[in-house]
């Protein structure tokens, strides 16, 4: 029987309860770093994975092609590749395409190919258009799956141990200022190439440890906005939610975090009037975008500037530790302190963010939310 990498295998009724490992860092000054460091972070979190999925996202990786969308695909065979290519040629300009160099340490393995594409300058909303292209490829072209579709970033992921996935994609060849890493311990869906983390849409990438029990609600909500949740994997909705909230609805990252992990109503009643109104509004308007269940996530994105976000569920059912390097230039976020200390050359401080409150760091700006207190709405947003 032919193996498909781009299609999820049949589900079995086998639930395992354990944890994934997540780690990531951002160089605030934009210094480019190879994938060696994030691989070393993941190596400490080995007890959190079971060899059924690993993946990485890197930002700042195509400085010479940063205005082009980079669509990286996982392909079953050359027929799928041809089909994708034919489709892409009809809708966008392919400026450059190349085979992603891979090692032969994993076999069988899919073909990994990437296309640097441009859209017509007349296009009123190129981002929306690319989302449609990704949704079309994932749902209509058999044997093809879109790993990532953002500008100046790319996702590497697959079925295997995180260290083997790093070797397979040879991530030491790539350099970026922001890296995310994930080692998977699948609980509700099988381990397969597309189901590994990070999940991506445009430049939004998410790695996740936990279980989004509100998946059904979130999925139906996202479908109203044109997203197709095809992977039956909870983390997918998180990537689409951040895209919807911060890009389409133009909310700040802090606001988006306050929507996916909102305060409880009894916490809201303890707030001042202005904040009460804002948080009630958010809960009422975005009830279906709230994430329920245990999670700790890292989100990477490019806009308005490259940023890393670390967030846990409001009851703190999954671990998340943040660290700042001694020179105050590198922000680390990970499941465990050991992963941070393993790679850091001196640590200024290590802290455990408050449950449901994000740690956010932006390129060039530094930490804009430490994750201590839930009160950080943008200054110009005044409630009445």
């Amino acid at each position, binding site marked *: 029987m032919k193996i498909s990498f781009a299609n999820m295998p049949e589900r079995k009724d086998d639930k395992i309860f354990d944890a994934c490992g997540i780690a990531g860092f951002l160089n605030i000054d934009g210094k480019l770093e190879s994938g060696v460091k994030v691989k070393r972070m993941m*190596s400490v979190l080995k007890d959190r994975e079971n060899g059924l999925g690993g993946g990485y996202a890197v930002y700042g990786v195509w400085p010479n092609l940063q205005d082009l969308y980079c669509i990286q695909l996982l392909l079953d065979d050359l027929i799928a590749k041809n089909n994708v290519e034919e489709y892409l040629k009809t809708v966008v300009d392919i400026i450059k395409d190349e085979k992603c160099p891979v090692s032969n340490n994993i076999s069988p393995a899919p073909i990994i190919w990437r296309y640097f594409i441009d859209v017509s300058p007349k296009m009123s909303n190129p981002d929306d258009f690319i989302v449609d292209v990704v949704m079309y490829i994932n749902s209509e072209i058999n044997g093809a799956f879109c790993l990532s579709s953002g500008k100046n970033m790319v996702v590497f992921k697959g079925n295997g141990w995180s260290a083997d996935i790093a070797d397979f994609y040879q991530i030491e060849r790539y350099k970026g200022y922001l890296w995310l890493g994930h080692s998977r311990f699948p609980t509700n869906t099988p381990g397969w190439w597309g189901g590994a983390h990070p999940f991506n849409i445009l430049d939004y990438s998410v790695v996740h440890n936990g279980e989004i029990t509100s998946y059904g609600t979130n999925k139906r909500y996202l479908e109203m906005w044109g997203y197709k949740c095809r992977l039956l994997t909870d983390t997918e909705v998180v990537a689409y939610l951040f895209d919807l909230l911060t890009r389409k609805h133009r909310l700040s990252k802090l606001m988006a975090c306050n929507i996916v992990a909102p305060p409880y109503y009894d916490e809201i009643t303890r707030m001042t009037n202005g904040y009460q109104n804002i948080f009630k509004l958010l809960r009422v308007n975005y009830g279906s975008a709230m994430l329920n269940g245990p999670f700790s996530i890292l989100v990477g994105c490019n806009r308005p500037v490259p940023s890393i976000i670390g967030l846990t569920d409001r009851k*703190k059912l999954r671990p998340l530790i943040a660290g700042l390097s001694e020179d105050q230039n590198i922000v680390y976020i990970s499941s*465990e*302190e*050991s992963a941070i200390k*393993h790679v850091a050359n001196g640590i200024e401080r290590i802290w*455990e963010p408050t*449950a449901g409150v994000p740690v956010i760091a932006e390129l060039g700006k530094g930490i804009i939310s430490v994750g201590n207190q839930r009160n950080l709405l943008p200054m110009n947003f005044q409630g009445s």
Partner: protein
Amino acid sequence: MLETKKISDWHTINARKDKTPLSYKKLNSLIKESVNNGHKLIKLLDVCGQRFIGAGLECSEKDPIELEIHGVPGNDLGIFMDGPKIIVKGNAEDQIGNTMNSGTIIVEGDCRDVAGLSMRGGKIFVKGNAGYRIGIHMKEYQDQIPIIVIGGKAKEFFGEYMAGGILIALGLKYENSKISNFENFISPNLASGIHGGKIYIRGEVPENYLGIGTVKNTLSEEDHQILQPIIKEYCEIFNINQEFIWEKSFYKIIPGSHRPYAAYYTAKPI
């Protein structure tokens, strides 16, 4: 009778080989080997996230074993431990003292979430702050009374579903070798679902922070007698002036009933 060797020098184990952290299995087997060879004082260097350190390690009070940990010990430090003393020269990770039976864990930095879960006996002293759900499901039986002291802040669900033992939060702030008090060091959902044991908080506890099924009291004479030796031990371990601790008064949180959630699961509360 076999005579057991007793070696009173420190035996050092490096938790890395060629800069790569050893697996937790390897590290634990080295510890076991060292104990079997009669070592009583064992120093672990460069620990990096290895789980289950000291798992199931046993010793008697007369013949103590001490483990000193440098680096970051991973989850489940001292799990099922029965007797030894573990000193962490820095921060610990999640779930320290998981289901431990007796012995002492001393953390000279912070500890993270779920420390002392299902603890059956022994003591945990954390100099600094702690994460969420400290002492969850901790229980006592006759003279087996587990004790956890958190020196600094404790986050939400402190003593959640607690069934026995003693849990203490002091709210001490350490900064540049100076000691002061945190303004707010306790969080909401305190002792949510508690149905046994006692929690002592050094300072006022806001009513809306109290979890389901809790009762707040001032200290009785008996409480003082329970607290005094524990506070003394904490202060001696971390070299702190005891008088400073007693400058603020404590409050006690105890269960209001044996079945705080009875109304949720039965037609009529019992």
